[in-house]
């Protein structure tokens, strides 16, 4: 398996980024792959709550501290694989949820952002070269914000998650054209919460939808995931890949993981850069 950093991003909130990022990371770790999952949504941190069952004691160092240069990469990562009985390592980099930390992150200067993106690249190298991590998943904040763009820039593959909401798709279309393509990123689209799970959905219908989406968005659609009520209603601390490994949501996500593994390394010459 090729080492890669995957950013999970969307144009708007509520598309299911975090559920996808956490379960994608867990799917890899269940298979025995060492994974890092980084919470880069510093305005609305959530991974600290999602993984509260697996984090023993209080968090000593946050990703905020690492980006601020107050701790080393290793200190900002927590291995929760034992707590969830995972074969591979699952290293978490958590964003500090305190209001003071959020306020502090919102007041950062452009100068700080340059250092932050450089530190993200150095964290990536450290994970891949020294910590035996094969996949680094970056859970970002929605829309075009410094840290979400930093995450997209420092990743190898950008996964844009969208629902079929027209505003969501319009925002995504702009983002793909003006952001992802501008950075020459290998980017793919994942459509989530499509129709209720109870609806009978033929494979032709699915192929049609993917075709239409790819034509509109001019990017590859790597998956279409139905809207599962129990996933939406489940406690956010429940890790589906561990608690309900046979859930159809996970089967969909496993297919996405396989497709992500099949994506070639970023070949900048192939990208749509109009030089």
């Amino acid at each position, binding site marked *: 398996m090729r080492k890669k950093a995957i950013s999970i991003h969307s144009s708007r909130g509520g598309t299911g980024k975090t559920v996808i990022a956490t379960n994608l990371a867990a799917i890899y770790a269940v298979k025995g792959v060492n994974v890092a999952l980084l919470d880069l949504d510093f305005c609305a941190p959530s991974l600290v709550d999602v993984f509260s069952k697996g984090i023993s004691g209080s968090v000593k160092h946050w990703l905020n501290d690492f980006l*601020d*240069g107050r701790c080393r990469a290793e200190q900002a990562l927590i291995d929760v694989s034992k707590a969830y009985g995972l074969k591979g390592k699952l290293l978490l980099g958590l964003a500090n949820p305190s209001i003071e930390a959020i306020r502090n992150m919102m*007041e950062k*200067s*452009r*100068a*700080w*952002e*340059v*250092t932050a*993106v*450089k*530190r993200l*690249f*150095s964290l990536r190298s450290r994970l891949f070269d020294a910590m035996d991590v094969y996949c680094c998943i970056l859970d970002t904040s929605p829309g075009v914000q*410094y840290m979400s*763009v*930093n995450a997209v*820039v*420092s990743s190898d593959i950008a996964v844009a998650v969208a629902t079929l909401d027209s505003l969501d798709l319009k925002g995504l279309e702009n983002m793909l054209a*003006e*952001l992802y393509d*501008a*950075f*020459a990123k290998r980017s793919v689209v994942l459509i989530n919460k499509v129709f209720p799970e109870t609806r009978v959905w033929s494979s032709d219908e699915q192929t049609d939808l993917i075709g239409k989406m790819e034509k509109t968005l001019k990017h590859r659609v790597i998956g279409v995931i139905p809207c599962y009520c129990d996933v939406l209603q489940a406690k956010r601390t429940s890790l589906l890949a561990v608690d309900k490994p046979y859930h159809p949501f996970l089967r969909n996500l496993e297919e996405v993981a396989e497709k992500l593994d099949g994506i070639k390394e970023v*070949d*900048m*010459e192939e990208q749509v*850069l*109009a*030089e």
Partner: protein
Amino acid sequence: MGKAEQSALKEELLAKLVDELTLVNRKLSSLIELNEKMLKMQEKFLRVGSEKPPFGGELKLAPDVMTLLSLPPSLRKTAMVLLKLDKATAEDLARETRRLRPVESAYANQLVRMGYISKKREGREVYFYIESPMEIRK
């Protein structure tokens, strides 16, 4: 001491206490205000520090991701690779971008002239790098 006297004393003490607390409160407010001003000044200082005038290729502004978007695609590619590599020769850049070394050298030197990146000589090699506006320990 009679009850009336006791109650008068109590009232006097309470009034004193309220006065003292008001004073402490006022002092705390001015300290908070001062601290906020200092933080703002510090932030401003850091911003100004990264925006030195571009005379003679001096560092103007290290390219954050939003600045990268405003660059032409050819230069953006070089700057992005430099963010990833930290410091690189034209040959290192060419290996990553899969362009020719002289082309990469021209783009990197253009970025130096624009004030986005810096270069230094180490022995026979010339290295391009993005100066961290806020250098932090590794």
